[in-house]
């Protein structure tokens, strides 16, 4: 098993020093060092506590080999490597827990995600990103205002795992053989920012097998790939016809629109005013210098208007919670494990059990024939 080596890999992978772990696990530094150097075997309780800190399942330490780490693509990487590793560890743990629940409930699905018309990174240009966004928009039936349904479609139809955490950074995407595609968004960001990040990360997820092939670009997207992802996100969230139609409505019989009117349109589409202004560069051929000027003016507008209403998204996806509750009530997930997955107190977790589920098989059934 070589648990010692795995303990070191897990600790370093989650960005902890021996001293930090020692304080958290209440285990001496020399003991930890001995465990990592295989000078002594840990008791299971010690291993379990360390596994919790490193956000690894127990199986990680018991399996014969160390599984390869999944690549995680960051949008706005945090300033320190430790912070990055801790967030990645938490994100990976959530994805693994989600997958465990899917397996428990027999709902681990690997849907075929739509792909672009090209298969090599060199063949990808802005036109291809634009075409691809249109294809995705049609295939997912995202409608006139895609931001309102994108997240739900990705989670429920394509089984993309989308989590929200409070972390230093904007978004992360990953794709794994084991748990499929996953996206992490910053829950503290405003809704419009999260919408854009989601669409941006979706580009990475859908083109993963194209851009992650080359060793040099495997861990970090190139500047050009990021621009393509932005173009895709912009085109996906601001469909040509819907945006043109809305702007036409706003300007009425006139020929110009005010920044205030455009801000309203941006709010309706769930994007920032800046994103809409950049989209206008393509829709109306507005020169880039002019867009820059409007963005400048738009920033002044922002300070004189009340901030947009936003929401605070839940950390866990609806489907994750639904799977956990069903697994608990089906007698496949223990209450303590449910409490851990759902981040609840014992009393809160107990509330998800019902008397009917425990002692009788009587359930209310409604005919759906």
């Amino acid at each position: 098993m070589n648990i010692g080596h795995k303990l070191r890999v897990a600790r370093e992978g989650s960005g902890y020093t021996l001293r930090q772990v020692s304080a958290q696990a209440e285990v001496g530094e020399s003991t930890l060092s001995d465990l990592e150097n295989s000078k002594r075997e840990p008791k299971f309780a010690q291993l379990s506590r360390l596994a919790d800190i490193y956000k690894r399942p127990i199986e990680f330490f018991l399996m014969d080999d160390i599984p390869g780490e999944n690549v995680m693509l960051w949008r706005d990487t945090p300033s320190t490597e430790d912070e990055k590793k801790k967030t990645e560890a938490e994100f990976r743990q959530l994805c693994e827990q989600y997958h465990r629940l899917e397996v428990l409930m027999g709902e681990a699905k690997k849907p075929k995600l739509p792909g672009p018309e090209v298969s090599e990174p060199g063949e990808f240009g802005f036109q291809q990103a634009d075409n691809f966004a249109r294809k995705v928009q049609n295939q997912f039936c995202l409608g006139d205002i895609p931001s309102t349904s994108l997240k739900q479609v990705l989670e429920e139809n394509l089984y993309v795992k989308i989590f929200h955490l409070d972390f230093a950074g904007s978004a992360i995407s990953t794709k794994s053989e084991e748990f499929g595609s996953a996206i992490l968004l910053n829950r503290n960001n405003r809704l419009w920012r999260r919408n854009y990040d989601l669409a941006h990360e979706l580009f990475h997820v859908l083109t993963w097998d194209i851009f992650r092939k080359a060793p040099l670009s495997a861990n970090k997207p190139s500047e050009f790939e990021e621009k393509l992802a932005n173009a895709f996100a912009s085109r996906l969230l601001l469909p040509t016809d819907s945006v043109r139609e809305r702007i036409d409505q706003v300007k009425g019989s006139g020929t110009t629109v005010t920044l205030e009117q455009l801000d309203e349109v941006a709010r309706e589409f769930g994007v920032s005013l800046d994103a809409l202004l950049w989209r206008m560069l393509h829709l109306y051929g507005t020169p880039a210098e002019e867009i820059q000027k409007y963005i400048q003016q738009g920033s002044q507008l922002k300070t004189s208007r009340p901030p947009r209403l936003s929401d605070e998204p839940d950390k866990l996806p609806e489907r994750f919670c639904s799977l956990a509750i069903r697994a608990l009530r089906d007698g496949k997930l223990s209450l303590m494990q449910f409490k851990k997955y759902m981040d609840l107190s014992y009393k809160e977790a107990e509330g998800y059990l019902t008397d009917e589920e425990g002692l009788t098989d009587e359930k209310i059934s409604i005919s759906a024939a």
Partner: protein
Amino acid sequence: MKRFQFLLLDAGPIIKLFTLRIWDEFIKRCDVTISRIIADDEALYTEDGCEQINLKPYEEHKLIRIIDVDVLCIDRFYREFKLQGKYDIHAGEQETLAFLCTPSENWMVCSSDQVVFRILGRLNKADQGISLQEILAATGLGSGLKWETANPAAGDWKYTKKFREKWTHKGQEDFVQDSPSA
């Protein structure tokens, strides 16, 4: 001699016994053994979350026994029974069940978790599970308690014989379905 000698307690019954304020009496009548993880990380508060449970003094005064299971024991348990993907239990429950499966004394597990009873049924160890209701009845501590009707909202039914039987039976069905001839 105590009524129950080789009794492993899961977190739920410990929490319940502290909540009912009969823990001290209970351990006078039963030889209680608890897994290290359950003692240190799981059975921490009473049901209302207000009162802290501290098992350390009981361990220090040898009033209960806390077991520290080897990783190898867990590894054997994993490899032998291949329960991954079918049930998902917490580390304390893994430690308890792995210990139960070591060929030593005829241990009994008292739990209030359906998965624990279900796994006992699946492992063909149905007779090694017991509910808190049954223990309290046998030790004369449960006379005033009406488990199924007393407080359904608090989930007291989890401690009943009926609950244990229902989930153990489900595990026995799993055993039949998983057996090669099924």
